[in-house]
């Protein structure tokens, strides 16, 4: 989407009052008040506070509906009065807004009347016409400067000019650039008056006592002297004459005006220095060296800069300065854009950019005024911009385009240091040039290997093992954003582990809980499709029980086939005890199963015999050490086969205290030797009714020690979330198992419950007066826990009669007829008596509803049993 004429998509500009408030902040003892809705001041304060990281106080006349209809003078007079009382400002800028201008407020007259009523207010009050529709923050900024100069400088033109005094009018530059400008002028021995000076007011120091009214900024006494200066230098070539303070000083007081580009880059700085020298300034040896260093750096980084295709956006003068810096360094500004409607913009920039672009064989460029970010983004893509320079509002476009954004200008909201960015001077220019060069160098550095490899070395079609590791959440340490789904299609198991009880899921993968519903392959497919629809990052489907995947191979195979058929991109994984692995390994690989988890608890048959009681293999039941030996042999050969065929293998090992903890190290060694990718040592979770029910659970410390011991032999999995089927959104049972016992104790005593009506506004705590309640929350409680019944509106119990006092009471009592008590934050004396008379106990409380209800039920029951005795 680009160049829409009737709709602005993502504005690359702000409104006039914003600029006006920022300019006013550069005068000593100054405050702003916006004449309009409260929101204008708040939005502007937020915008500025986040950029400058400074408290920004801007008042508002807070016009209401009444003000909008009948005029807001009353509000403004009151506002000025209050502002003076709170801040004692020496200067007040009264800025109009869209609303004030549209309803035709006459600021000048109102201010005059204010002065008449408050002769000793001590404040110079300046009116600034800054309707939001009149232009951007840039125009608002200059208009405020002009208003301050116009309304401050008075008297006759000076005959004699003050020798060597220069007026400097700065556009919206950062406080750090303002500091640089002041010190540069100072070191050049030039006497100057700078407006505005935001260096301290918008970038303050930490102080023991906070200054509500900032003490920095240009004093109005200096502004008064501007009429006697030798010349005004205005760093703006685009602002219109009517908004230019320099033009006013020229026309009214005959002060010559020279409009200059920003002192940025070689040419901008040279121009500035020449003029200073013409007015008696001297450039120190140190500054001459700075110029030399900038030149030196231009040479050092010119090859990197030549790769830059920059998109520069912001206020017109800012863009021109940066464009000039880019061009002299061979970086092509393929897009120069401003949000302002600025007639001379194209003409002023065209020649230079064209020359630069041609020189670099750049394919095209655009210069656009009155531009929004949708257009900027469109051109960036079209023109192949590889770097953006401007405010942080460009970050979304830069992010989508995958290019760097060099943050300069206003606002900078996503980084700190907006107030400290540098663009001016040789050092400021060089800092920015370095950022451009380094962005180009990093791009090359990050990309050249991959680009050349992809272009000149045929990439492998097959999904590599590495990619498979990265795309599976279990193998990539949960850093992966990929989701997985478990499909419970395998109910049967072919071995009996001592820690497992048949009615539960296999503890290999899912934790013990209530058994999951077993799905048929077709149901599994449906479930997969359902989740795939809602979960874009679902990349892995796994079969992890509830029994053993390979003991139900027909269903497992069918499920895999169906899923793969519906989603060929899916990664398949499977979890098994490994007994059947040597038999099915090859087929699994062929089916596309790339990840396997094999649970190996020991490699010693004598230990194994303590863990499993039998193994059913090819129609025969083995027991004791024979069973264990068979299982281990098959596990190990299966792992080796599958791994050699390219599967990524994880070995799970359930740590059983006093049984296999001595041989886990050996398991790790063996697993790693056979090609397993990682080992996951899991704590044993005691299950009621299982053979190892009473076995002590391993502590976190012990488990961690085990992992550390095994670490040298095999990669350890520490991020196991024991996610079970959670990733797919079914019930994660872990909290049920953990709290099973507790909730058993909390059986609700339904025989002895009391019912309460609660008056609550927030719905969370008892926080309403009984008399204010229009509805009650009804709870039952046995004194220990409570249970929500319903929300009950009193109006629903209207008997149809007139709602007089009596009628209302009848309704309330009807609504509460089944309640034993009422809880409210306060209850009046009369209603309290009435409730008691109807057998309802009034209770005052101000805590959480559930707690208050339980406590009330407890005390009611106590009282009952006491009276029964």
């Amino acid at each position, binding site marked *: 989407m680009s160049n829409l004429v*009737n*709709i602005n998509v*993502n504005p690359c*500009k*702000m*409104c006039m*009052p914003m600029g006006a408030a920022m300019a006013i902040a550069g005068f000593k003892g100054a405050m702003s008040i916006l004449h*309009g*809705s*409260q*929101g*204008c*001041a*708040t*939005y502007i304060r*937020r915008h500025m506070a986040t950029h*400058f990281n*400074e*408290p920004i*106080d*801007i*008042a*508002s*006349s*807070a016009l*209401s509906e009444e003000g909008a209809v009948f005029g807001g003078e009353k509000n403004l007079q*009151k*506002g*000025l009065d*209050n*502002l003076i*009382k*709170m*801040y004692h400002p020496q200067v007040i800028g009264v800025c109009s807004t*869209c*609303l004030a201008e*549209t309803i035709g407020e006459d600021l000048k007259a109102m201010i005059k009347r204010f002065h008449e009523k408050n002769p000793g207010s001590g404040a110079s009050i300046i009116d600034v016409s800054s*309707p939001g*529709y009149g232009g951007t923050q840039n125009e608002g900024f200059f208009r405020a400067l002009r208003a301050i100069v116009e309304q401050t400088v008075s008297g006759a033109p000076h005959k004699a000019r003050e020798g060597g005094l220069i007026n400097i009018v700065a556009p919206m530059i950062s406080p750090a650039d303002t500091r640089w400008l002041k010190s540069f002028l100072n070191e050049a021995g030039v006497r100057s008056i700078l407006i505005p000076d935001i260096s301290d007011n918008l970038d303050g120091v*930490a102080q*023991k006592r*906070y200054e509500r009214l900032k003490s920095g900024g240009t004093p109005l006494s200096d502004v008064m002297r501007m009429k006697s200066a030798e010349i005004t230098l205005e760093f703006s070539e685009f602002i219109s004459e009517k908004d230019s303070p320099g033009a006013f000083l020229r026309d009214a007081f005959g002060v010559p005006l020279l409009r200059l580009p920003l002192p940025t880059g070689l040419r901008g700085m040279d121009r500035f220095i020449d003029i200073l020298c013409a007015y008696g300034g001297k450039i120190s040896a140190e500054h001459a060296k700075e110029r030399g260093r900038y030149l030196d750096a231009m040479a050092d980084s010119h090859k990197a800069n030549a790769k830059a295709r920059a998109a520069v956006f912001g206020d017109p003068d800012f863009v021109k300065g940066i464009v000039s810096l880019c061009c002299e360094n061979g970086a092509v500004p393929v897009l120069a854009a401003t949000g302002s409607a600025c007639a001379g913009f194209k003409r002023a920039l065209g020649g230079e950019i064209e020359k630069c672009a041609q020189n670099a064989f750049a394919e095209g460029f655009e210069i656009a005024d009155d531009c929004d970010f949708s257009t900027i983004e469109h051109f960036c893509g079209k023109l192949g911009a590889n770097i953006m320079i401007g405010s942080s509002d460009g970050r*979304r476009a830069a992010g989508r385009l995958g290019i760097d954004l060099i943050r300069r200008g206003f606002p900078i909201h996503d980084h700190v240091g907006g107030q400290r960015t540098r663009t001016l001077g040789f050092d400021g220019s060089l800092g920015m040039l370095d950022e451009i060069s380094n962005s180009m160098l990093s791009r090359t550095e990050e990309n050249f290997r991959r680009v050349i490899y992809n272009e000149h070395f045929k990439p492998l079609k097959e999904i590599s093992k590495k990619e498979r590791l990265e795309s599976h959440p279990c193998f990539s340490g949960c850093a992966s954003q990929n989701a997985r789904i478990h499909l419970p299609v395998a109910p049967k198991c072919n071995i009996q582990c001592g820690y497992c009880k048949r009615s539960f899921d296999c503890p290999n993968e899912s934790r013990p809980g209530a058994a999951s519903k077993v799905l048929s392959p077709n149901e599994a497919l449906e479930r997969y499709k359902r989740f795939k629809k809602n979960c874009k990052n679902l990349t892995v489907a796994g079969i992890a029980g509830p029994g053993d995947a390979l003991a139900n191979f027909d269903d497992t195979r069918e499920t895999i086939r169906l899923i793969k058929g519906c989603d060929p991109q899916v990664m398949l994984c499977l979890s098994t005890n490994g007994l059947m692995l040597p038999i099915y390994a090859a087929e699994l690989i062929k089916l596309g199963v790339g990840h396997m988890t094999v649970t190996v608890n020991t490699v010693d048959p004598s230990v194994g015999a303590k863990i499993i009681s039998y193994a059913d293999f090819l129609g025969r039941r083995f027991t004791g050490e024979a069973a264990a030996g068979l299982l281990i042999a098959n596990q190990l050969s299966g792992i080796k086969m599958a791994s050699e065929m390219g599967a990524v293998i994880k070995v799970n090992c359930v740590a059983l205290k006093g049984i296999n903890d001595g041989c886990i190290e050996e398991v790790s060694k063996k697993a790693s030797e056979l090609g397993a990718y990682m080992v996951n040592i899991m704590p044993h979770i005691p299950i009621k009714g299982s053979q190892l029910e009473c076995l002590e659970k391993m502590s976190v410390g012990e488990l961690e020690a085990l992992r550390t011991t095994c670490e040298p032999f095999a990669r350890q999995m520490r991020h196991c979330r024991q996610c079970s089927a959670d990733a797919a959104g079914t*019930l994660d049972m872990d*909290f*049920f198992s953990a*709290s*099973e016992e*507790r909730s058993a104790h909390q059986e609700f005593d339904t025989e002895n419950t009391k019912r309460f009506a609660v008056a609550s506004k927030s*719905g*969370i*705590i008892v926080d*309403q007066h009984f008399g204010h309640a229009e509805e009650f929350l009804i709870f039952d409680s046995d004194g220990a826990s409570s249970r*929500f019944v*319903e*929300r009950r509106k009193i109006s629903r119990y209207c008997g149809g009669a007139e709602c007089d006092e009596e009628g209302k009471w009848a309704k309330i009592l009807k609504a509460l007829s089944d309640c034993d008590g009422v809880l409210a934050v306060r209850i009046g004396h009369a209603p309290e008596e009435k409730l008691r008379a109807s057998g309802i106990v009034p209770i005052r409380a*101000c805590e*959480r509803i*559930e*707690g208050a209800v339980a406590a009330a039920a407890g005390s009611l029951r106590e009282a009952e049993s006491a009276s029964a005795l």
Partner: protein
Amino acid sequence: MAASILEERKSSIILSGAKKGVSCEKESVSGSVSQRACVFCGARVVLNPITDACHIVHGPIGCASYTWDIRGSLTSGGEAYRNSYSTDLRETDIVFGGEKKLKAAIDELMESEQKPPKLIFVYATCIVGVIGDDVEAVCRESQKKWGIRVIPVKAPGFSGTKSQGYKLACDAIMDYISPFARQPASFGINILGDYNLAGEMWIVKGYFEKIGIPVISTITGDASSESLIKAPSASLNVVQCAGSASYLAQRMEAEMGVPWLKASFYGAQDISSSIVRVADALKDAAICEKARAFTAYESERARSVIDKYKPRFEGKKAAIFVGGGFKAISLIRQFKEFGMKIVLVGTQTGKRDEYDVIESIADDGAVVLDDANPAELEQFMAEKGADILVGGVKERPLAYKLGVAFLDHNHERKHPLAGYIGIENFASEVNLSMNSPVWHHLGMHC
């Protein structure tokens, strides 16, 4: 009270425990540097999280510029809401009216988007009414022309406070879903008044789904034009931010028969009671059981967080200045869980009864103030020796200037503070700011 407190502000500042409650629900005092926003802001923040809707601000550029991508609301679907559209009215439009431009803007948007929106909100800001644009007529016409919904939100900034904007947003939602009022009931809830800041809606939704309660529609966090229209079929509305969404819940109950409940997902106790209560309200024994088991399990984990941080926080003093009363109340309770004292509580637009609660649960002697300004915050934070301030972006630099830690509890944050996970985030942020070494050095060297 000090000289810097304006006479007409005095009734809005009291000490907790005082006889007379704080004065509130009034227009801001002109010139007092209120922290409040405006009606348009309230409407936009509520509607903005609807991910596939386009939001056109009809007016001069500022309002669209300052509310572009304003909240950290996350999306699982569309991205349209992250753009800011404006008719960017200029001088001539003010003179000749902006209706034509608005109509053309809608047409242009519909023609140029590859995937044209099914839902457009048109916000009329301050001057639109004054210059006499009939926004409703334009919306009606465009709606007919394009066969989509174009809903006007008449929200001039001066027409009240942010709360009025919430109400307008709720009306706009009702306007959108009312045609679907009659549909077969489905078992499940809507979550209202959560805006999916840092994924908070997803977290809360996840809790309900875990205990077997389907979430039908989310309003408006991660909502879409599709998902919203299912809302009338739900069995229950669960209202999280009472300030912005109670009104919608009331209308849905009255006009669609969906009952509702208030809830809070900040702080362990509130989250647990809210989940259990929603389960109880649905009257399904299995779900009730699961809710209790789930909340018991999570509460225990939350307790370990509190135990970890409490020794560091105990006795420290918190100051709270936030948008609404509901959030202030919830924050007081959260700080108290960690043994902290509350020395200042204020809101931009708190209601009378919310202040009653604030006054009753804040520590005695705490300063309670409505619609405070920076001068007052400064004075009372210093006077009370606050260790940390909770507030919005504008208040942050002030806190830092005063050497006070800061907790970002605003709509730009990028970490969830709701849900059980939010308890740890809350504590960890309080700790890293309040116990940062920088305060020590600042105190020594300033």
